[in-house]
């Protein structure tokens, strides 16, 4: 937790020598607290004070990164318990687990299907983050072969799962080029596993069945010189996971409890008996405090839902996702193509644009600056009224691009029709369907309106 100016002051030499460029140590301390100065400006600060200040400045939940040549995943460094308090910053990494006891072709196939998967949601390309390879065989060669097979199909980060340090080492050398997460150090093997992690400069997960034991382990692993740690508190059922992960988040943020100030890894598949149940658990973990989520099942519909949910929860509540207002051309419209208007809330824009695009029919889509609000929200807030619609039509220059004067407004704001007609003399205002899904059908009939 950040220190106050006064707390920092107590750690400074208090000689007011001014060498830092500030008139007093206290003034300097105040600037440090406000993050407007660097500690290094004071030549006289003691090593001990430096260490204390560094520790205090470190985030309460350590930022941990895993990497592959093609992708980096950073998790942790969250600052709030509820997203409305500020925002959640680092979406949990979603990994798919494969096992080295499967035939290599199956390992490769599963990893490839999951890594090739991508889906477009409100204009964003979403995908999974990497693969977790588990040494179910216990055999170093088999594990290395599985890791190698996975590396052949993806450049994304890996999680290497083995309890035997020798097996982990074999996996690491096959994982060439990635900085994987090593899973896991336990009470039995922590020393050797931590040494492997240290040598590889890789983060390591620690697993224990109680928070007491977990805290012991992180301190030991850190003591060996592995700063990047991930927690597995051992719970697998949804209720226990919710409770434990909430406790961990509170310990880190409210108590500034360093031994447990790390991101958390979960395994929803181990607490579920089918895809939908696994998705329910994974959704819970996305909302409530996981840093890495290892899935055991892969189905496009499941992954799509989870990826969308992850975007939703990690959207900054202070700032709706917006698109640029203006004219959007869909399917190469010409002078006699239909003209539609919507708002610049991303979800709204894309639900309309995708429908027009998918219909194959050309169209002009005008996007009004409604401060990132949906059609009805903007209407209710006075940001998408007849005046705004008319202004959008006038300023986008659409009138020069078309040879007709027909404007389709969203069905949800049908009440605006009369007013828009008044604001836009010479224009015919058409009330479109309420839901964008019905736009393709409507556009087919457009010529007859």
């Amino acid at each position: 937790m950040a220190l106050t100016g006064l707390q920092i002051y107590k750690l400074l030499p208090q000689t007011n020598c001014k060498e830092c460029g500030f008139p007093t140590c206290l003034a300097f301390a105040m600037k440090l607290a406000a993050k407007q100065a660097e500690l290094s400006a004071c030549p006289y600060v003691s090593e001990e004070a430096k260490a204390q200040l560094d520790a205090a400045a470190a985030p309460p939940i350590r930022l941990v990164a895993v990497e592959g040549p093609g992708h980096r995943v950073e998790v942790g460094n969250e600052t709030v318990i509820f997203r409305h308090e500020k925002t959640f910053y680092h979406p949990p990494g979603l990994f798919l687990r494969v096992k080295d006891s499967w035939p290599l072709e199956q390992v490769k196939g599963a990893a490839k299907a999951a890594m090739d998967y991508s889906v477009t949601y409100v204009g964003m390309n979403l995908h999974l983050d990497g693969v977790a390879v588990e040494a179910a065989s216990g055999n170093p060669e088999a594990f290395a072969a599985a890791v190698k097979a996975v590396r052949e199909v993806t450049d994304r980060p890996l999680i290497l799962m083995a309890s035997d340090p020798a097996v982990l080492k074999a996996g690491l050398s096959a994982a060439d080029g990635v900085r994987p997460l090593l899973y896991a150090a336990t009470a039995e093997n922590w020393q050797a596993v931590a040494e492997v992690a240290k040598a590889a400069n890789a983060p390591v997960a620690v697993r224990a069945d109680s928070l007491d034991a977990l805290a012991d382990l992180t301190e030991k692993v850190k003591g060996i010189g592995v700063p990047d740690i991930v927690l597995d508190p051992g719970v697998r059922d949804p209720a226990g996971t919710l409770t434990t992960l909430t406790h961990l988040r509170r310990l880190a943020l409210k108590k500034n409890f360093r031994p447990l100030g790390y991101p958390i890894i979960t395994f929803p598949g181990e607490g579920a008996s089918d895809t939908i149940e696994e998705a329910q658990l994974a959704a819970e973990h996305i909302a409530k405090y996981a840093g890495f989520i290892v899935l055991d099942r892969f189905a496009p519909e499941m992954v799509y839902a989870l990826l969308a949910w992850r975007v939703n929860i990690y959207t900054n509540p202070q700032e709706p996702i917006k698109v640029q207002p203006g004219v959007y051309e869909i399917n190469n419209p010409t002078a006699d193509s239909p003209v539609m208007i919507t708002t610049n809330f991303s979800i709204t824009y894309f639900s309309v644009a995708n429908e027009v695009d998918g219909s194959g029919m050309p169209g002009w889509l005008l996007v009004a600056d409604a401060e990132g609000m949906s059609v009805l929200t903007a209407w209710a807030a006075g940001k998408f009224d007849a005046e705004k619609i008319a202004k959008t039509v006038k300023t986008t220059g659409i009138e020069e691009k078309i040879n007709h004067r027909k404007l389709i407004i969203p069905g949800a704001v049908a009440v605006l029709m009369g007013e828009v007609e008044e604001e836009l003399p010479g224009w015919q205002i058409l009330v479109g369907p309420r839901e964008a899904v019905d736009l393709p059908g409507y556009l087919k009939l457009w010529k007859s309106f």
Partner: protein
Amino acid sequence: MPVEIPVEKWPGRVVEETLGATAAEGGTRSRVVKVGGENTLPFMFTDGEMPNPPRVAIEILDRRPKDWSPLLLEAWGDVVDDPAKWAKAAEEAGADLVLLQLSLTRDGDRPTTAADARAITRAVLQATGLPILVFGPGQVDADNELLVAVAEEAAGERIVLGICEEKNYRTIVAAALANGHLVNGRTAMDVNLAKQLNILIADMGLPLDRIIMDPTTASLGYGIEYGYSVMERLRLAALQGDKMTQLPMLVTPGFEVWRQKEAKVGEGVPASWGDWRQRAVLWETLTATNLILSGADIVVLRHPETVKRVQAYIDRMMAR
């Protein structure tokens, strides 16, 4: 290293409410359903208690739905032509509550009359022993007319009347007061608006244990994060002791999800969306599950498979 579990003891508690009345209490329900009563965030049993699990209501219409997804029609079959049969099927599908949604019009597109609303409500009450909620069509004049009739017809049954909004709450609250019912007060995703409406309703003399609040919600992928956070904020306010937010919350994920393309249609969607049936149920299930995690006490659902999924999750959470 001994780690002290960071327990949160909240000063506030959500009001516990009883839906439905058995013969002993002047109604005809075979059982009552209690909601609310928690003094903790959802399922955080280390902090406090949650005497009642979140409840699942199944939404039925008073006539064959016009624009519902074929998946829903397929799941329910012919019962959608008869609200009484549908109510019974909903009970058999495991609902805790049945929500009857009245339409603006009847077959042949003539307006639904007060007499229609009475007859349908009566038929539904006879077909199921579960407590029911009855929602008007959502137009002020029609709602006032129909819900007053419904309230009278169901006098003593402790049903929930909805939707009670700022513009029509007087009539509906009066009808609830006169006939021993509860109301569902809906506001547009805003903590202060929700509070304000609760105050207005309570000022008319309706006790707090007969007010449910409906902060409005949205589907996964279509604004759910707003609903999720508004509910978290409302619940935190309640637990911190703000009386006028200490009401159980009802949300309608079924309605929200089934108008979105992900659930509604199987054709003309990207291949990356996967299997339609699974996706539709998943979409409704995750929306509801997530809203329960943010504090929902009643979720109103549409697909019977979702009901099973959501209840299975609730059961696991309550069993600890």
